[in-house]
């Protein structure tokens, strides 16, 4: 009997359904789960353990390259913590967005680490791997059928964009997890997934209200970030038929009605609704009440099922190979004239190393102290006494990028300009060599909603592989 079937049997026939404890072990598995809070959570005997492992936030490099942001050793450590706990309690363990972006390559890299951990700990269970790479022909068909829509300021999709992308993933919802549970999975490792689905899939399949379950999932997927002070410790959500109670597993973190309500704002363009593949969560009607100083009860969010399923798709495309230059300056005349100086040096570089018209290299400079972080519409009233320069060249090959940035470095160091005082050199290099190859540059080319012709198509987009460990 699978961990889920045992859970189902234990609550079947009970009306109302008993309180269900969902432990959010981590919102970023692989960066080091705080162990004390996790242990406190495990001591509460959760009915299900969930962990999120990925996000689109770290940028297009992980989706484009298929490489993980977390280290293999820390990923193994965190997997060992959640895996041993879930198997000891014999409860379902769900992990979403494996390996940062949730590509198939990342999913299978994490799966290999998980197998090694299981073997070392002598753990045996049914593992489900759910893939989230989107078949290109399916996306192209959706584009041609007018079934894709941009999210925010990104170009509408066309066939070339789809075919040129290095990777395209889709965010799976509860549907994929439900299929894996039905196949007898004790542990589910999913590619790109809605962060909510990881925590709401089991409660919804057990029949708890989708609105409350999804709202709870939306809050606990970031573990204890919704608390004061916010943190990365495990968070416990206790769900019943009418609402849920939130409690951080670190006693120093307090969930208050305001701190939890404020979490609906976090990383959301719209604080009142959360779109999922199979419906929309409305939290405008939610109520937040203090249970005590560090626990909050929440209820009242509404779930509106969508007549037509849709999937959020994410894709990244290769831009070029990158080399960077790091340097500082403390010369008032240089700082005052830096924009003109950089423009002149870029011209010099173009004369010495003419860009290939087929794939011209691009030079970027960020002037920290002036406008390195924010693209301020106005310059500062008083110039800083020091600035830091980050130069960047993106070219067709790593060799070309490095060659160009070295030319820029040397000509910038010795560039003469009107009023120049420091004729020994314009730059302070903190490191030697001051320029270095910085890997491949990608950009997001797909961030769209793809609506499906038939809701049943969801099951074909996210295939499951079962294996017995």
């Amino acid at each position, binding site marked *: 009997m699978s961990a889920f079937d045992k859970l189902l049997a234990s609550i079947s026939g009970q009306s109302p359904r008993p309180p269900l404890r969902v432990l959010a072990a981590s919102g970023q598995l692989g960066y080091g789960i705080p162990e004390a809070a996790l242990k406190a959570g495990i001591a509460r005997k959760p009915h299900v353990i969930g962990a999120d492992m990925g996000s*689109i*936030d*770290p*940028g*297009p*490099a992980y989706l484009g390259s298929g490489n993980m942001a977390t280290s293999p050793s820390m990923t193994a450590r965190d997997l060992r913590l959640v895996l041993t706990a879930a198997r000891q309690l014999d409860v379902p363990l769900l992990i979403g967005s494996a390996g940062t972006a949730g590509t198939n390559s990342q999913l299978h890299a994490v799966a290999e680490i998980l197998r090694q951990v299981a073997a070392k700990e002598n753990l045996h269970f049914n593992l489900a791997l759910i893939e989230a790479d989107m078949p290109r022909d399916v996306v192209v068909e959706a584009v041609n059928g007018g079934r894709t829509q*941009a*999210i*925010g*300021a*990104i170009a509408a999709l066309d066939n070339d964009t789809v075919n040129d992308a290095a990777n395209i993933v889709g965010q799976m919802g509860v549907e994929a997890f439900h299929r894996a549970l039905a196949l007898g999975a004790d542990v589910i490792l999913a590619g790109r997934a809605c962060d909510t689905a990881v925590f709401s899939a089991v409660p919804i399949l057990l029949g708890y209200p989708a609105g409350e379950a999804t709202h709870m999932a939306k809050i606990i997927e970031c573990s204890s970030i919704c608390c004061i002070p916010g943190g990365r410790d495990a968070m416990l959500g206790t769900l019943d038929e009418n609402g849920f109670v939130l409690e951080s597993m670190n006693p120093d973190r307090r969930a208050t009605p*305001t701190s939890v*309500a*404020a979490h*609906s*704002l*976090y*990383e*959301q*363009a*719209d*604080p*009142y609704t959360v779109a999922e593949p199979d419906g929309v969560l409305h939290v405008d009607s*939610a109520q*937040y009440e203090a249970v005590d100083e560090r626990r909050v009860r929440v209820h009242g969010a509404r779930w509106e099922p969508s007549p037509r399923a849709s999937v959020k798709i994410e894709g990244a495309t290769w*831009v*070029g190979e990158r080399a960077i230059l790091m340097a500082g300056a403390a010369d008032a005349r240089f700082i005052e004239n830096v924009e003109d100086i950089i423009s002149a040096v870029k011209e010099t570089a173009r004369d010495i190393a003419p860009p290939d018209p087929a794939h011209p290299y*691009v030079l*970027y400079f*960020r002037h920290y102290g002036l406008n*390195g*972080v*924010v*693209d*301020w*519409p106005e310059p500062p009233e008083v110039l800083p006494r020091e600035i830091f320069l980050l130069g*960047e060249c*993106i070219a067709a090959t790593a060799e070309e990028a490095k060659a160009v940035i070295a030319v820029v470095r040397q000509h910038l160091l010795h560039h003469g300009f009107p009023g120049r005082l420091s004729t020994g050199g314009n730059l302070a290099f903190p490191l030697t060599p001051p320029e270095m190859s910085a890997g491949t*540059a*990608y*950009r*997001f080319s797909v*961030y769209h909603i793809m609506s499906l012709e038939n809701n049943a198509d969801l099951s074909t987009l996210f295939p499951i592989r079962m294996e017995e460990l």
Partner: protein
Amino acid sequence: MKLIDSARVIRSKNAGPTQMTIDILFDEAEAFEQARNSKNLTESAIAARYGLSQNQVRIIPYPAANALKVVMDRALIAGTPGDRDVYGAQQHGPLLDLVL
């Protein structure tokens, strides 16, 4: 009073790679209402501070947390070459000295 002195939290972050959101949280409902009704904290005033046009900025009040949410399009999609802030976590600076 400047926003840096009246708000408890002023944070910016991506809302997906194509949009950026700035949350301004106040301790008290009174300060929230003052900010909400301030003629200096409008979509056009914020747009001017970021070099955007007014229709690229939206303000959404969220009374449950005494908060104002500002949503704007990113000039560059997060992580695109030339971007300055992949997470969008340091884009709140231009609002700090806004006088309510």
